[in-house]
């Protein structure tokens, strides 16, 4: 076993790798957007943004203009993102307190929020903060983000660790928001919840509609099978 465990897992998984998924999402974000990236998979999107796109990353702990990672020389314990990871900032960045940070979110000034998810349903409701009796992370800023951001994307794996589907007819876990999600991106493709099912906007290379799970929940979208469908379908946020 010369490969680290993550490589083994990646090789077995169908569709995009984590890195390819992050790059795919990064390409779909319109230039000059203000974007909030959630903890986990969405955070990785920051590594793949084109600097020329001038995208400002909002971090709800009080920072607008996250860009990349520090060197040992520039590492600062007071410069972190909402995942409590060390970050660097770009030219034009600003620091502020938490009330102003959430004024940006709730006030509709943030163009796009990309969050992680435990479950999303066909109505676009999201659950991502609690498994009653077993796991408690708290909602953090997620409920404000899904309420206030101009657009909400969920970036998550297609199934959980036990293989159970995460795109469902109806969420079973405590909700973060009701009918708030416009786009879902998993390693298998881009999806849009439309009330009765998920429309597949585009699929990762080699993935077909049969790979997505319950056939009653998924329909091929108009953009299929063009590979550019995701970007064009997503760019209207």
């Amino acid at each position, binding site marked *: 076993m010369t490969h680290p465990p993550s490589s083994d897992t990646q090789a077995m998984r169908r569709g995009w790798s984590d890195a390819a998924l992050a790059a795919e999402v990064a390409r779909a974000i319109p230039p000059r957007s203000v974007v909030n990236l959630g903890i986990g998979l969405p955070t990785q999107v920051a590594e793949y943004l084109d600097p020329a796109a001038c995208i400002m990353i909002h971090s709800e702990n009080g920072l607008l203009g996250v860009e990349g990672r520090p060197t040992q020389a520039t590492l600062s314990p007071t410069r972190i993102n909402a995942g409590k990871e*060390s970050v660097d900032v770009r030219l034009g960045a600003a620091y502020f*307190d938490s009330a102003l940070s959430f004024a940006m979110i709730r006030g509709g000034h943030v163009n796009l929020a990309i969050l992680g998810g435990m479950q999303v349903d066909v109505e676009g409701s999201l659950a991502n903060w609690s498994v009653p009796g077993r796991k408690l992370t708290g909602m953090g800023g997620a409920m404000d983000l899904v309420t206030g951001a101009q657009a909400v994307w969920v970036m998550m794996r297609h199934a959980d660790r036990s293989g159970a589907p995460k795109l469902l007819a109806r969420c079973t876990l405590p909700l973060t928001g009701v009918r708030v999600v416009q786009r879902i991106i998993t390693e298998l493709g881009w999806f849009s919840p439309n009330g009765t099912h998920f429309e597949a906007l585009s699929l990762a290379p080699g993935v077909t509609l049969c790979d997505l799970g319950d056939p009653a929940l998924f329909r091929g979208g108009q953009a299929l099978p063009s590979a550019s469908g995701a970007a064009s379908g997503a760019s209207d946020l």
Partner: protein
Amino acid sequence: MTAERAPAHAPEAVDPECGGPSGSGPFLKVFADAAAALTDLHSGAVVMSGGFGLCGIPECSIAELLRRGVRDLTLISNNIGNRGKGLAQLLKSGQVRHAICSYVGGNPDLEAQFFAGELTLELVPQGTFAERIRAGGAGIRAFFTPTGVGTVVAEGKEVRDFDRPCLLETGLRADFALIKAQRGDAYGNLWFKESARNFSPLMATAATVTVAEVEELVPLGTLPAEDIHCPGIFVQRIYQGSHYENAIEYPILRSP
């Protein structure tokens, strides 16, 4: 913690007649250390603590609460510590009765004590959490927000339809706010470094007694008046701390 309480009066907070210790300096706000600044913080107190994860936490004041062993505390803080550090030390020592926070991930002590029934917990969406503190400090008794409609957060709350349904949320206040800034002066004016500001300036407005610890206590006039993040009117006591760990939860460096 009630929104009805009259705003704290800064001079009273340091008046020995009211049981508070008197500080030094022209405004009687400067204290020698955490022990001197927190002598009247009692068991059962409602305490706000600044910081996002471990960033910007009042390390010296937390260490003093641990040393003093005050119990049955209600803590209002975004994370109640993280990875065993910060306020999580007070969880381990069993000093916390009730916690109001927004995010528990990364804090196994809090998750475990909650599931074991050892403390009660109120989870508040982070923006609502910040606004409740801002409101509590600004004399706003309650406000309507769309955040949390249709979720468990809405249970038991008044819902009113404006352009969309909104929840009535009430202001939060505390007996003490413990905050940390990079620099401060004898009037209690504070300047925070980078993203360490987070909830601290809000909490300073919402407590009867706000105790600020600073890495550098600077002479009056050193902080440009235009650049003060928290005006001293909101700070009743200030001291210069020492031996700051300033831990980073996840120090990730640029790939070479």
